[in-house]
């Protein structure tokens, strides 16, 4: 129909659009952000599908579940760690009788380019007992997304598209196919299937278990699970999953013998195909982008009966992302010759806060206010401000997960530590900071919460926050923080002395205080000005 140059993320978005999408929800997170961004760009305001960012991944998922309940198709997007937040509705949604197709596009970040871990979302799909697709290129990302919607409606369960950074953020060509129309609004008639009270859930769980066989039958036939048997060569065979395939094929022409090859792109695992492959080869070499998910299934506790070489026995690097060079080494091929160059000591260039960033001024004021406390604790959170851990600021001391700064500060304070401060951004606060703040208010904990409000989701490229900045002080007051201990400051060098004074006073106050440091992100400001000029 049409040839488009798209990021892998955008190919998923286009696939969903062409599959008759009615709603797309998500929370920004690298490397998944561009799925919703693309839809926001191509779908005209006021037209369908509904496309919007939500407060967090859990609320995104629940919105999509509502769409499905009334018979329409929904896409939910998030990064891998976002699925931890959405795990509750995700796992349980496998037990209801989905109406409209529900597709979860989750983007993993092997190698941790922009994340705190490299968890593999295939485990979540397996845990929930639902199908999962793993595209290896842009066309597959498009096709698999379309197929995922059909499959979701066929089995009445959510279907996962597992993306990874290198595909999500790579540009390639997609050939689109004819667009399918939207489903009509039709509320699920099977209400019992949606009431997961124990009596119903037991029945639904049995149904889901029965369905596993059918899902496996589907996997066995799927062209995304391709088996190539080389009759004349049996010494070893290669299994690939995800981008492992691309890196294997990149090196294939250098191998003297072409081994048998099984690629798995659709889950649940097609056991018959694996048996067929296994019986044909003497040894198995396995390349998976992510955890050794399939490898562990193959070897179990007692082993597979044949040597399986992969991440578990050290044949393939256990951590980080795969690349053509790692796969080459595991295939026993010699390193390619590279350019010879004179030695030169290269200093690293880590990311840093932008020049003039409001967070920098907030950190400098905090630093001075904390001068008299050689022992202090400042918890922090997920966002640009984590970069303030480096000189000259050296303020944040923890980064764990969205919203953890507040709960951890409460725990440390109640354990007897003083002084304790928590720092997090406005979007992170709205994502997961409200509930721990309730705990802190309820116990009137002696801590100072600093909401670093730059009026945007900065780290992921400046998406709009779910509520405007002005609502923050109302929210904080509304949950019961004493109004005399709520301050809104403007982090600018000229306000330094007075900001230091406010921090000093509130650190000394033996109760809960909240300082909102508000100044717009320079990057979004720049973008806005550019937009106005054009």
């Amino acid at each position: 129909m049409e040839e488009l140059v798209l990021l892998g993320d955008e190919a998923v978005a286009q696939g969903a659009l062409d599959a008759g999408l009615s709603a797309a929800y998500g929370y920004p997170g690298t490397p998944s952000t561009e799925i919703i961004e693309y839809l926001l760009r191509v779908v005209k305001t006021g037209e369908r599908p509904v496309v919007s960012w939500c407060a967090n991944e859990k609320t995104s998922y629940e919105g999509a579940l509502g769409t499905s309940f009334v018979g329409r198709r929904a896409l939910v997007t998030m990064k891998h760690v976002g699925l931890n937040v959405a795990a509750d509705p995700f796992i349980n949604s496998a037990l209801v009788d989905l109406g409209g197709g529900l597709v979860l596009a989750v983007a993993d970040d092997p190698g941790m380019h922009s994340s705190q871990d490299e968890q593999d979302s295939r485990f979540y799909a397996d845990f929930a007992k639902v199908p999962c697709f793993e595209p290896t290129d842009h066309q597959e990302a498009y096709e698999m997304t379309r197929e995922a919607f059909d499959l979701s409606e066929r089995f009445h369960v959510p279907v996962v598209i597992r993306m990874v950074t290198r595909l999500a953020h790579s540009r390639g060509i997609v050939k689109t196919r004819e667009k399918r129309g939207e489903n009509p609004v039709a509320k699920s008639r099977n209400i019992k299937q949606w009431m997961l009270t124990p009596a119903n859930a037991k029945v639904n769980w049995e149904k889901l278990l029965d369905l596993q066989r059918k899902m496996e039958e589907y996997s066995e036939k799927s062209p995304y699970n391709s088996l190539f048997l080389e009759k004349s060569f049996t010494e070893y065979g290669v299994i690939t999953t995800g981008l492992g395939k691309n890196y294997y094929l990149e090196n294939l022409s250098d191998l003297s013998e072409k081994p048998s090859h099984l690629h798995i792109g659709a889950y649940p695992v097609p056991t018959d195909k694996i048996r067929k492959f296994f019986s044909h080869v003497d040894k198995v070499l396995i390349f998976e982008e992510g955890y050794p998910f399939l490898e562990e299934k193959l070897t179990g506790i007692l082993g597979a009966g044949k040597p399986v070489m992969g991440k578990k026995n050290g044949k393939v690097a256990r951590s980080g992302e795969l690349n053509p060079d790692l796969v080459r080494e595991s295939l026993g091929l010699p390193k390619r010759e590279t350019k010879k160059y004179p030695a030169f000591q290269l200093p690293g260039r880590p990311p840093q806060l932008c020049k003039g960033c409001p967070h920098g001024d907030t950190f400098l004021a905090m630093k001075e206010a904390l001068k008299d406390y050689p022992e202090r604790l400042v918890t922090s959170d997920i966002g640009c401000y984590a970069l303030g851990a480096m000189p000259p600021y050296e303020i944040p001391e923890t980064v764990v997960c969205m919203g953890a700064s507040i709960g951890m500060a409460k725990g440390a304070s109640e354990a007897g530590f003083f002084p304790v401060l928590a720092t997090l951004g406005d979007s992170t606060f709205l994502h997961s900071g409200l509930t721990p703040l309730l705990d802190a208010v309820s116990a009137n904990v002696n801590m100072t919460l600093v909401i670093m409000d730059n009026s945007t989701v900065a780290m992921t490229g400046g998406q709009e926050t779910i509520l405007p900045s002005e609502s923050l002080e109302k929210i904080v007051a509304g949950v019961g923080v004493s109004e005399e201990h709520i301050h809104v400051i403007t982090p600018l060098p000229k306000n330094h002395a007075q900001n230091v004074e406010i921090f000093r006073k509130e650190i000394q106050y033996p109760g809960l205080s909240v300082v909102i440091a508000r100044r717009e992100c320079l990057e979004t400001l720049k973008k806005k000005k550019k937009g106005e000029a054009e």
Partner: protein
Amino acid sequence: MKYDIICCGVGGQGVLSVAALIAYGAMKAGLAVRQSEVHGMSQRGGAVMSHLRLSDLEIKSDLIPRGEGDMILSMEPLEGLRYLDFLRPEGVLVTAVEPFINIPNYPDTEKLLDNIRTLPGSLLVETQKLAREAGLNKATNLVLVGAASKYLPLKEEILLESIRELFSRKGEKVVEANSSAFALGRG
């Protein structure tokens, strides 16, 4: 035919837009293209790189294998040295001569440039001076693409057409200044 390029620089310097311009031209020329980008945290003033692969055959891997790279195209000299092991023995390094100093331990500029000069197949480009000559101080990256174009398996006209198409939204003056920056870089 295949041509593999590592585009690199510091977050905010325009690494992705340089890669995008070359990718656009290659697609116009009917080549298969893959452009792997880095988004997220490292874009904040840190080292940034993009793998750009052009080929007349199907491209398997989005990442360039070490020793397969034909060119490193760098927005500033220090970053140009960071990925040399991606180059094949005859590969070239094309880099802007102007350092981008945002770290306290940035090496001595003269020593750094001397090191690059001794590297066979290296080209230092005075992007700021040539952009000024072209009448658009901002057009440094176009100078750089012009310098790189001497090695790329793409016709000059295709790249000039690409510049026209990509910048036409900004008016004829910008198109002309960018085209002349490209021409000055190409030399």
